[in-house]
Structure formats: structure tokens, C-alpha cells
């Protein structure tokens, strides 16, 4: 998958899961400090990405997913 395509999908999925506007999300957005993602949201996002991309995101990987870019990179490498 092309990075641009993944980026678009990731931002849409975050927007849908967190019920926020896509326009407020970009690659540099930090999940916690910019998007106010709390732990429960984060686990919800991880499950949503696993379902969409049929990929396993280990618990040990969650701490590395700090920005939208981190999620895009993870999917690029693992899907």
C-alpha cells in the first residue's frame, strides 16, 4: 500500500473512532497531547487498526505509537 493511501485511511479511522474532525488530525499529531487520547481510546484504536488491516499489534508495541506518523509507519512495515 502506498503511504499516502495508508495516511488517509489511518486519519479517517482515528477520526471515526474518536469522533473528531479529520481536519484536526495530521501526521505530526501526538495522540495524547494533541488529540486528547486516553488509555481506553488508545486500546480502542489499536483494536480498530488490527481489525481493519488484519495485523497484530502487540501490547509491548503500544508505547511506541505516540503520533499518527508512528501508526502509519507501523502499518507500512507490517501490512
Amino acid at each position, binding site marked *: 500500500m502506498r503511504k499516502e493511501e495508508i495516511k488517509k485511511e489511518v486519519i479517517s479511522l482515528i477520526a471515526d473512532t474518536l469522533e473528531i474532525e479529520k481536519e484536526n488530525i495530521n501526521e505530526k499529531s501526538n495522540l495524547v497531547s494533541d488529540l486528547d487520547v*486516553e*488509555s*481506553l481510546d*488508545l*486500546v*480502542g484504536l*489499536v*483494536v*480498530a487498526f488490527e481489525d481493519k488491516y488484519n495485523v497484530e499489534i502487540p*501490547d*509491548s508495541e*503500544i*508505547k511506541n505509537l505516540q503520533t499518527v506518523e508512528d501508526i502509519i509507519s507501523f502499518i507500512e512495515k507490517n501490512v
Partner: protein
Amino acid sequence: MYKLYIEKDVTTKELFYKVINDLGIKDSLIYNEYGKPYFENSNLFFNMSSSGCYTVLAISNKEVGVDIERITMNDSVIDRICTDEEKKIIKNADDFTIMWTKKESYVKWLGIGLSYGLKNVDTLKIKGFKVIKKDDYYISVYEN
């Protein structure tokens, strides 16, 4: 023994400094590899959490973890975080929120956070959680 501070409409930073000023604690913070803060020299431990309008801080002479969550239900995460036995006892949003906050308080007590894997926290086997209801929120505290 922990003391729990529950405040409305304050940030975690504001509550933290208010409490340590009130208690006269003058100490620096250090962080473990997962980002959990500790006092550098004091023999006290603390942990914080926020949800919606509430922020909580637990301070103790023992390691402590605290979590607050507004009562909610999130079916999509149950398979990821619950054991088969735990799934059987979740009948409503109250059950889910209590279980979530117990698991979170435990991994925060460990100082590892979500990386530990919430399914590895079997709330039916681990004893000693203190659960408090405040308005439409649940707070769990774990210390040991």
C-alpha cells in the same frame, strides 16, 4: 496507606503542585523507562489519572496506581483486555468501567502501563483493589 485527592476542573499538573505544596514536599521527579514519575528522594509514591472533568492523585508510602474513568461501555476492547472468566461478569457499563479502572490501576502500580497487557491483569484473582464511585465515574486504587 494512601490518601486520595479528587478534584474537578484542574489539570494533573495543577493538582500535583497543589498537593505537594500542601504537604510541603520539595523534591525532584525522576521517570522509569515507561514514563512513570517518582519522587527522587522522598519515600512517598504517587500516581495520577484524569477523565472528563475529574483529576485524581493518590499518594502513599507504598507503590500505588490509580485510574479514573467516566462510566462507559466499549465492546470492541473486551476481547483484548479480558480473560474468558472476566468476560462472563461484564453485564453493563458499570461492570466494564470497574474492570477497566482496576486493570489500569494495576498496570500503573507496576509502572509499566498498557505495555504490560491488560489481559494479563486477572482482576478475579488479584485482591486488594479499592473501588470508589464518584458521580458518573469510577476510581480504582491499587497499592502494595
